[in-house]
């Protein structure tokens, strides 16, 4: 286990708690210092048995950037994301979070395609799970409610997850990830199972909470248009390495189907298919 893993493991058991009120979750605010974490990946390698999945990934993500990762199915996008989230151990290279002060632990959260809600817990208590050790504190339910308000689900607080739609379940999962005020939020095809219309609404929601909260966002998606609509930067993963790193300098909110977006989409698809 490498140094990063120790920090990442720590980060997951002891989320960073800020001396702030739950109001931070509903009102936009300047990105504060605690979110200022740079992710620095160098020569990262990971194999499953003889299957070399990541063969030296180099990637530096400055604080608060929105990065999208695209690539063919099976190219190792999920693997990379799980390493960043500290869910798996890597074989070689390095993966570090750099911040000031360096001693603080880094709070990294992941959202998957499956919402992974506890079916036997009401929506509110599912969100409270996201508070980690702080879920036993007296303000836990207030913070969870604020996070649910942030994703627009105030009226579903007392529901069972089983009665929610796919999009609503993902919003609960998002609230659970947001409630601990993470510095890095990784998404593994979070909208992959949703219908086209819900996807668009959810993309807008993701963009809004990212702008409000200022975390670093790392989004794995198979939808190139989605990547361009949301990200500051699109990365193509190919044969275990980064084969394209493209900055998307378009003003937000971005117009779907504009000529610039179409041109960028063409460029990325050429890379993916060629």
């Amino acid at each position, binding site marked *: 286990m490498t140094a990063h893993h120790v920090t990442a493991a720590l980060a997951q058991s002891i989320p960073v708690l800020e001396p702030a009120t739950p109001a931070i979750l509903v009102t936009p605010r300047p990105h504060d210092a605690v979110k200022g974490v740079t992710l620095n990946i160098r020569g990262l390698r990971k194999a499953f048995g003889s299957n070399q999945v990541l063969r030296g990934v180099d990637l530096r993500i400055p604080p608060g950037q929105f990065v999208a990762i695209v690539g063919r199915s099976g190219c190792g996008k999920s693997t990379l994301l799980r390493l960043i989230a500290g869910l798996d151990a890597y074989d070689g290279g390095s993966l570090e979070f750099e911040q000031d002060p360096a001693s603080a632990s880094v709070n990294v959260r*992941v959202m998957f395609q499956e919402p992974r809600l506890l079916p036997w817990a009401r929506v509110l208590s599912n969100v409270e799970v996201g508070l980690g050790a702080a879920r036993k504190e007296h303000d836990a339910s207030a913070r969870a409610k604020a996070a649910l308000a942030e994703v627009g689900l105030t009226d579903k607080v007392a529901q069972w997850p*089983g009665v929610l739609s796919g999009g609503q379940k993902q919003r609960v999962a998002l609230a659970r990830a947001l409630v601990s005020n993470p510095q890095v939020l990784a998404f593994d095809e979070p909208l992959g199972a949703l219908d086209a219309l819900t996807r668009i609404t959810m993309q807008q929601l993701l963009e809004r909470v990212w702008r409000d909260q200022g975390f670093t966002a790392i989004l794995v998606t198979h939808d190139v248009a989605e990547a361009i609509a949301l990200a500051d930067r699109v990365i193509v993963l190919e044969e275990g390495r980064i084969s394209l790193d493209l900055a998307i300098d378009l003003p937000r909110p971005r117009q779907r189907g504009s000529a610039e977006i179409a041109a960028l989409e063409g460029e990325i698809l050429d890379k993916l298919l060629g």
Partner: protein
Amino acid sequence: MSLTEALPRVRSLRLPKADAFISWILPLTILIVWQTASAAGFIPERVLPAPSDVAIAGWRLLQTGELAQNIWVSFWRAVTGFAIGGTIGFSLGLANGLSRLSERVTDTTLQMVRNVPHLAMIPLVILWFGIDEAAKLFLVALGVFFPIYLNTLHGIRTVDPQLIEMGRSYGMTGGELFRRVIFPGALPSIFVGLRFALGIMWLTLIVAETIAASSGIGYMAMQAREFMLVDVVILSILIYALLGKLADSISRLLERLTLSWHPSFQKH
């Protein structure tokens, strides 16, 4: 019929009053036809006495206190045997579901024992315990043990690993992970085991009481057979049916209370 099933049968438990009434129409009709046929002399009394005769026999035994006494004895045996077998089965199911070591040590042995029908143990049990209380309790406990053990183990094994990963990544460990993720996830399967076990509990008790007992409903039936009291025999069978139905209703109620989150129990 397999002893493990992933989920409770999908069914609606929201019977409105009218539906509840509908389900009683058939038993009532059978009762009326039976009574009429007996009164008209179509069914010989030696084969099947009229429902009214069975009711009278029940009233007679109730007044002598014999009925209550025998029901109590059978009930006590069922509950005690169930508690012993269920507790051991549940504990071993938990242990083997959570610990690979515990499973390696015990599971193979348990799977071998499982292949012996527990009623085949009756001659041995009589040799060991005679027709003592211990004999009945042993058989009931043994019969109840396996469905509870297997379904608890199965339930724990099949808890969604993604949920466990989720719980861990949000800092849940040990007891909390068990309480909030593993146990609730295993509960539907545990209930399947519970209901199988209740069926086996009555079956075992009936066999054990008719073969080796000096009290209880099974014994009452066997004694009545010797004196050709068909009405008491029928009464005993009906009491078993009612007790079985009662146990099933209680387990359904428990299921409905604890699995209210489950889609098949939800009101919309």
